[in-house]
């Protein structure tokens, strides 16, 4: 149990002989999502050493992906960041399209932006709500979850499922947007703003909340970059980096939005950045609704997307193309590509290697949480046990993504 500790922690000289306490925080610990263990060495309540241990949700995503065709990976991507699965779908299909060197249709691009932003709102809502929950405020959490629920209904309407969306396809989408999606979205947005007002009233200026979060889990800009932080956690440190701006994909370069950045990189900044990003996402969606063009959503190439059902049922040409695509999959030329999108927690990258057959040769995901988790150690050492929880939450680690 005992381990050697430095003579002084936090500048306090010890005059009493005490022993450090080593405890396992997790994996069965309510704040560890059941998927992480942090081996803590404590001096009283102060964290002397921490060793995050991940992998409890490892499913072998990358190995499984090599087993089927390129399209069969799509349902697996739902289960990466299961809070914002639509972004994963968009990222994976974008990567395959990059390998295929094809340009998807305008409407499809706008729809993909739309669903990405909806997913981002869900993701940030969850993170913000959980940041309240983790410090003991249960009510804001449930309010936020209610607002998220509205978005889930919208997602179900679009994709047919709330979480396991599998909405995008290589070269397009499973479906076009359904009738009445706009009205549904308006309702969601109304609910969202009402809820955000409620949450901010309870939290943003509440001293208990500020005390718990401000100057806790600080990650300075330079350090954050060096650890490979991306997303809200990096922006909270004051670094203006967003994949949507730095390497625009889809139609983000045509849309007008701000990248919120924080002051010091503490938990409170991450909370504020996320709230602001929700507002920016709404702004993007407004523009998408304004600009979205009519037209097809799938590329016009039967070697990449499945033919329309009408052609499949009634013509031999459609039937053959359908058969070939299902049996052999999309034939992706030999090569490699890295394609990154801005996921809920940062840069979600897909590095794909194709050997020219119908199956992925290698599918690698760059999960944003992975880099965040390796920096967690620096953020929690020197703090108190209770600080681990909001800090751990504010980087919003998602087990499905980090463990794959």
């Amino acid at each position: 149990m005992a381990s050697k500790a430095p003579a002084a922690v936090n500048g306090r000289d010890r005059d009493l002989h005490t022993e450090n306490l080593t405890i396992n925080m997790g994996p069965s610990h309510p704040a560890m999502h059941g998927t992480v263990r942090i081996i803590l060495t404590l001096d009283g309540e102060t964290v002397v050493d921490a060793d995050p241990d991940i992998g409890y949700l490892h499913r072998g995503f990358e190995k499984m992906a090599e087993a089927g065709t390129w399209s069969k990976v799509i349902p697996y991507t739902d289960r990466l960041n299961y809070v914002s699965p639509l972004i994963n779908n968009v990222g994976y299909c974008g990567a395959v399209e990059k390998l295929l060197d094809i340009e998807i249709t305008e409407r499809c691009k706008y729809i993909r932006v739309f669903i990405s932003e909806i997913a981002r709102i869900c993701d940030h809502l969850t993170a913000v709500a959980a940041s309240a929950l983790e410090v003991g405020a249960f009510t804001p959490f449930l309010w936020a979850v209610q607002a998220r629920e509205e978005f889930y209904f919208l997602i179900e309407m679009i994709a047919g499922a709330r979480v396991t969306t599998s909405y995008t396809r290589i070269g397009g989408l499973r479906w076009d947007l359904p009738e009445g999606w706009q009205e549904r979205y308006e309702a969601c947005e109304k609910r969202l703003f009402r809820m955000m007002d409620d949450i901010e009233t309870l939290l943003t200026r509440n001293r208990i909340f500020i005390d718990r979060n401000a100057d806790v889990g600080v990650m300075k800009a330079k350090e954050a970059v060096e650890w490979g932080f991306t997303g809200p956690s990096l922006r909270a440190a004051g670094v203006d980096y967003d994949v949507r701006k730095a390497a625009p994909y889809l139609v983000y370069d045509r849309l007008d939005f701000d990248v919120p950045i924080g002051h010091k990189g503490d938990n409170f900044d991450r909370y504020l950045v996320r709230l602001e990003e929700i507002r920016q996402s709404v702004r993007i969606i407004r523009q998408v609704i304004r600009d979205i063009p009519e037209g097809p959503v799938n590329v016009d190439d039967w070697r990449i997307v499945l033919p329309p059902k009408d052609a499949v049922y009634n013509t031999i040409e459609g039937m053959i193309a359908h058969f070939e695509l299902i049996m052999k999959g999309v034939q992706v030329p030999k090569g490699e590509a890295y394609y990154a999108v801005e996921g809920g927690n940062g840069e979600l990258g897909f590095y794909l290697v194709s050997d020219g057959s119908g199956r992925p040769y290698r599918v690698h995901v760059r999960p944003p949480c992975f880099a965040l988790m390796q920096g967690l150690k620096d953020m929690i050492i020197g703090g108190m046990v209770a600080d681990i929880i909001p800090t751990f939450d504010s980087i919003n680690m998602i087990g499905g993504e980090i463990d794959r």
Partner: protein
Amino acid sequence: MTEFASDRVLKRFPEQVIETHRQHGDDTVVVKRDGLVEVLEFLRDEMDFLMPIDVTCVDRLAMADPPEYESDPLHPMLTTQTVPSLGKLDGPRFEVVYHLRSLSRGALVRVKVPVDEDDPVVPSGTGVLKGFNWFEREVFDMFGIRFDGHPDLRRVLLYPEFEGHPLRKDYPRKGYQPRLDMPGLNGDKVPGIKE
């Protein structure tokens, strides 16, 4: 058009660079193993590639000629081989792939290092950017490539007793691991505690 990082690297280290290309617009440098740290340091210090994005690895084993899915010329759908071929590869088996991003340039660069199967060791990039730490651990975990000079090279996703490196192409897709004995789970008796 701004200059490509790979061109600068090639100019600076003509000896160490094996090739450069920009497939699908991804700026790529293939370097020799010995030159990796130098190149990474050069990229960090002079090209401002400060952000470690990713480290991964590709096992090129199944790319051996003929590939795993080689088919019968008369019946192209049928795979004639049930196991990945262990044929001779042209070139080293592994390729460790580093991705770095520069915030000021808004550019991404990929650095690839071919590694032989017999000596799967790569100098660690953690000395250059500490953010490579866990990514390299993952590569070690999944491919068994050791990183020379890594401060904490342990498995990261799998448990320490795991046998083999699952993302290698010769690791079976439906493999089983031996069962482990769990200490301290016999009854309620925990060692060291008196009843």
